[in-house]
């Protein structure tokens, strides 16, 4: 739509060819990220959030993957670009940080060498200039005595420090979009808070868009501007973070919120769970994908897939009955399933 979007994903579909036939891991996903904005992508394992990010980076094996739709970045559709052009965009304009810091750095080189390499992969930079840039960006991540750290090998650093190095590596070319794939999942809570602060600060320093993939609602509330909730390959709710936490519209999002214990919860009571389990991707329901587990599902839900409708300004939801549920006029037809 407008030119201010850093990236615009439109009706993205990703199909894998597997032994069991064609599996659609991402089905009709659309979202956009603006400059200086963090979009949270939330969902449980296997809902397609990582596949979406790998589709943006075009890191999936092209032999077994088909794409439909568009990923518009800087006026170009990433899905149609050749490998040469893509490798110039990767790392320079779009960077990525990963969850597993232990294995995401090559154990054979010092971290300084690896940051310098990230720079030298994009254009001829003298080693000295690259080393200076590396030192600058590592200092910006707040690592104590950065000169010393640059000469160390990945195994000599702690998980939090390695994640800072990964962030420095991703940011050294000053990208316009950063994709963070569960960057804090492997870290303890204190370090997590520091890394989150760092990402927020870097976002505004570099004026870049961030796609933050996580399954932690608490993290989302803390750092994101907007949120896309995914379920089984689809975006089911897309909203500003305030609107989502104030009034979640989709029954699945409501379930997620209820499942989070709060400080007022009764410690004796069982935690809330969403009953049932996620259907297999090779056997996707015909109607609403959440219908079998939804306490409000009706015949219409089972028969017809709902569309992603605008509920209020900046809040979209994929549910036939969101209005009724919000009013409280929908009855829990499927209440039996919830109890047992």
């Amino acid at each position: 739509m407008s030119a201010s979007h850093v990236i615009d994903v439109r009706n993205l579909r990703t199909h894998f060819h597997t032994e069991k036939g064609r599996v659609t891991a991402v089905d009709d996903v659309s979202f956009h990220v603006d400059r200086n904005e963090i979009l949270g992508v939330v969902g449980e394992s296997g809902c397609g959030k990582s596949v979406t990010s790998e589709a943006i980076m075009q890191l999936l094996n092209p032999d077994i993957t088909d794409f439909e739709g568009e990923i518009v970045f800087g006026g170009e559709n990433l899905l149609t670009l050749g490998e040469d052009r893509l490798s110039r965009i990767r790392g320079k304009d779009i960077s990525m940080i990963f969850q597993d810091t232990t294995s995401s750095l090559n154990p054979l080189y010092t971290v300084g060498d690896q940051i310098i390499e990230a720079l030298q992969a994009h254009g001829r930079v003298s080693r000295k200039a690259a080393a200076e840039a590396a030192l600058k960006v590592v200092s910006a991540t707040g690592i104590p005595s950065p000169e010393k750290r640059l000469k160390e090998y990945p195994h000599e650093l702690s998980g939090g420090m390695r994640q800072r190095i990964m962030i420095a590596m991703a940011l050294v070319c000053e990208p316009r979009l950063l994709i963070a794939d569960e960057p804090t999942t492997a870290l303890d809570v204190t370090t997590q808070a520091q890394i989150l602060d760092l990402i927020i600060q870097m976002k505004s320093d570099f004026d870049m868009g961030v796609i933050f993939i996580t399954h932690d609602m608490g993290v989302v509330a803390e750092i994101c501007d907007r949120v896309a909730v995914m379920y089984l390959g689809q975006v089911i709710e897309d909203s500003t973070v305030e609107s989502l936490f104030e009034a979640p519209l989709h029954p699945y999002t409501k379930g997620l919120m209820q499942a989070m214990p709060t400080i007022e919860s009764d410690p004796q009571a069982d935690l809330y769970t969403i009953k049932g389990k996620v259907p297999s991707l090779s056997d996707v329901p015909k109607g609403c994908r959440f219908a079998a587990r939804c306490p409000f599902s009706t015949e219409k839900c089972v028969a017809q897939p709902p569309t992603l409708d605008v509920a209020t300004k900046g809040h979209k939801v994929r549910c036939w009955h969101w209005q009724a549920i919000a009013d409280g006029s929908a009855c829990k037809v499927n209440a039996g399933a919830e109890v047992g």
Partner: protein
Amino acid sequence: MTDAPQFSTDLKATKNRLKQEQRSLAIKRFLANKLAVCGLGLTVVICLIALLGPLISPHEPLDINPIDRLKPPSLEHWMGTDNFGRDIYVRVMYGTRASLLIGFSVAMLSSVIGVAIGLYSAYFKPLDHLLMRITDGLMAFPAILLAISVIAVFGPTTQNVILTLVVVYTPLIARVVRSNALVVKEQPYIEALHALGASRTRIIWRHIFPNTVSSLIVQASFVFAVSIITEAMLSFLGVGIPAPHPSLGNILYDGKNVITSAWWMTVFPGAMIIGIVLGQNILGDGLRDFLDPHTHKAVSKR
């Protein structure tokens, strides 16, 4: 404030000391590995003998002296003489030189080619099918037979022997490198490098290759040993190093007819082959234990 530079020099000294300690630890670990030390010792001794041995004997490897035919070991001829009266000691020394040269060249050349084949076939799927079927074919074919036919066509020269052995033993290296590279290729840091926009050449040579080096060294040392044996076999069959030039296989061949009357013509070159190959094999085993701490040692400690 005067403490600051003092502190930093202290830090530097400590760092240097730590580095030295680390180095001496690595040496200690190598020395504790008895296999590697024995193998390395044997290999070094044989190399020195081959290099310096001929210098202390007055004889030349091609000097014929019909009067002194088939003489047993004596002070004049330390390992006796052969059926043309040539000094066996000098011939064994030169033969060892030739064997070591061939072993080294074959190990180097087949490593270079094997690494390239292994890395690229691990990285590019379509290439993998093509290259690995070719390697399968080469490995299914008996090495000696292939070598004999190639040399029969192109003529028996040292160069041709080396090239043939490279063709025969490159698949061994390529396989090992490929299987290692396939594992490394799936590591998250390789995906991270893709995400950084690193080129394929950079990923293959700077990041995947160093991770395959340890098993490459081990495999190359075995290729070294095996190609020395094969060269001796080829020479014995008359398709190796051409006749008047000394090679361990040639000497064995000459000694075959007189094995009952002149044992020295068979025993000394045979012992030399055993020495070289044993040294290389033990070194290879030791290096594997040294470089890859995950493999279990062949003998458990008691």
